[in-house]
């Protein structure tokens, strides 16, 4: 176990390095450069001004050198400064970490819970009407783009009913946890919606697969009621795909809830990253990539560990 963990960590370091190199190269290959992004297409910077900027941002250095100096910064525990306003990237990311974490955990948590639950219900009512209704709902939720659901939710819950604020992280001047949670409710719900649909499908399919196994028959022979059979015997045996899906979506969401963050003015990492892309803010892009890569590698490692916890037949090698 420990040896596995150590091995895995050891492998993760070159993986991380490879990710960073590839992203760095891709980023520099992408059209547009930071100085062009510095001013809108109609505003004027003279040649001389651009040279100054370029030099200051180190853009006049060759690519490998820039990567190496970035790595050196990372080695010193820094992630450089943003091109946009010179603020430290690390601090910006740290600031966004809490909102992002909140949104992801709340959205995924809610989604996982409801997704699995509806999946269980659906499998239990296989090919009867609750199954069909839930399936249709699931596909509607999966097919509804986040921006659409977000805007509609805002119309209904913020404008018509006035239950929730239309967006933002807090009300100006009120930074209490209650206020944050009040603002979190709607984006988290919208975020979870698609996820519910996705998980519901995987849960349902997995359950149908395991329900025909012999040990489920044994469970019934013990006198368990259908719910207990489902929860205690069939469900644990479908946990592996469910955990896989949750893990993969977790990684995707940490930086990927861009639409929802945008619609709800939620100051999360996704929006920051988009900002970084829009302004070709290389240090910011690399910084976020690094953080996300670490998180994703960790989550994937965790899912693999969980596999072996769930299923004793799986050995970690």
């Amino acid at each position: 176990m420990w040896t596995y963990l150590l091995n895995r960590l050891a492998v993760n370091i070159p993986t991380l390095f490879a990710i960073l190199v590839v992203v760095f190269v891709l980023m520099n290959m992408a059209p547009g450069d930071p100085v062009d992004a510095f001013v809108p297409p109609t505003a004027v910077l003279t040649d001389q001004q651009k040279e100054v900027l370029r030099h200051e941002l180190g853009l006049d250095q060759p690519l490998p050198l820039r990567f190496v100096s970035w790595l050196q910064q990372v080695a010193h525990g820094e992630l450089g400064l943003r091109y946009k306003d010179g603020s430290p990237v690390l601090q910006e990311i740290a600031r966004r970490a809490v909102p992002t974490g909140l949104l992801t955990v709340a959205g995924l948590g809610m989604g996982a819970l409801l997704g699995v639950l509806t999946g269980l219900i659906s499998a239990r009512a296989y090919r009867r009407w609750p199954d069909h209704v839930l399936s249709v709902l699931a596909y509607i939720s999966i097919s509804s783009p986040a921006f659409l659901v977000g805007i509609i939710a805002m119309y209904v819950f913020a404008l018509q009913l006035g239950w929730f604020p239309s967006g933002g992280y807090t009300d100006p001047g009120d930074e209490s946890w209650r206020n944050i949670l009040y603002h979190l409710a709607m984006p988290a719900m919208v975020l979870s919606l698609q996820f519910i649909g996705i998980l519901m499908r995987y849960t349902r399919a997995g359950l149908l697969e395991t329900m025909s196994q012999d040990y489920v028959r044994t469970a019934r022979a013990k006198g368990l009621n259908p719910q207990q059979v489902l929860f205690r015997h069939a469900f644990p045996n479908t946990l592996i795909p469910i955990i896989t899906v949750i893990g993969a979506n977790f990684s995707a969401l940490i930086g990927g809830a861009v639409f929802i963050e945008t619609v709800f003015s939620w100051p999360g990492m996704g929006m920051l990253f988009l900002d970084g892309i829009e302004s070709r803010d290389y240090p910011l892009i690399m910084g976020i990539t690094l953080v996300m890569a670490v998180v994703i590698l960790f989550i994937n490692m965790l899912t693999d560990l969980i596999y072996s916890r769930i299923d004793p037949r799986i050995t970690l090698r």
Partner: protein
Amino acid sequence: MSSVTAMRWQKFRKHRPAMAGLLIFGVISLLCLCSGWLFHADPNAIDLDATLQAPGKLHWLGTDQTGRDMLARTFAAGRVSLLVGVLSVSLALVIGTFLGALAGYFGGWIDNLIMRFVDMVMTFPPIIVLMTLAAVLGPGTEKTIVVIGLLSWPLICRLVRARILTIREMEYVAAARTLGAGHTYLLLRHCLPNTMDVLVVSFSLGFVSAIMAEAGLSFLGLGVQLPDASWGSLISIAREASVLQQNPWIWLPSGILIVLTALSVNFIGDGLRQSFDPKSLKE
């Protein structure tokens, strides 16, 4: 062998949702494929004097902001979306299943290598990859398909691997090995069929996300380009608050068609899964 196929077909035919799915999918595909011939309106012809018209006699599904006939446009858009949906998810499925099966089956360093590659692909920020690819590749439906396919296989890969990780420990796999079965045979015959449930779900979900992803790509120069449309791009018009509220005929048909096709794909998958599962719960 053919008797097994016949038995499956029998079972499939009895699965009513699957047959309904087949029918709906067939009808929608047919409508999309023959849209040019069925609806005489040119899906890209503008008529600035007839913008945002509600569904009526002349335009059954109304018109959009530039007066294009939404009926013709929606079904013409379906051609791109169906193509992108089916092909890119197939590509992802092939890659994901192949790599996932290898990783799960062989384990050891092969698993490690493949899974670290998966980690990498999962970590690449899609926007950057897409921007770069778009710049390098340029527009085109086939490129869009490839790009979406190349970005969406990791989850499938992980799912397939996880499943095979347990299947390879089954005694019947060992039994087949003692009969002299090679790796390829074991994988194809004994391991992969057990991933059917996961693959069916991944297909129908991936189908939807590919269609939606395509719309996001047109901004980067990939995906469908003006004047053509896709279902995803038509839905994106609903970003305009007024269109969302006042002109549902622009985006709602596409939305419904996506849900319908996804559902029918799902039901077909359900039927397939059941007809391949000898112990399916109900006949």
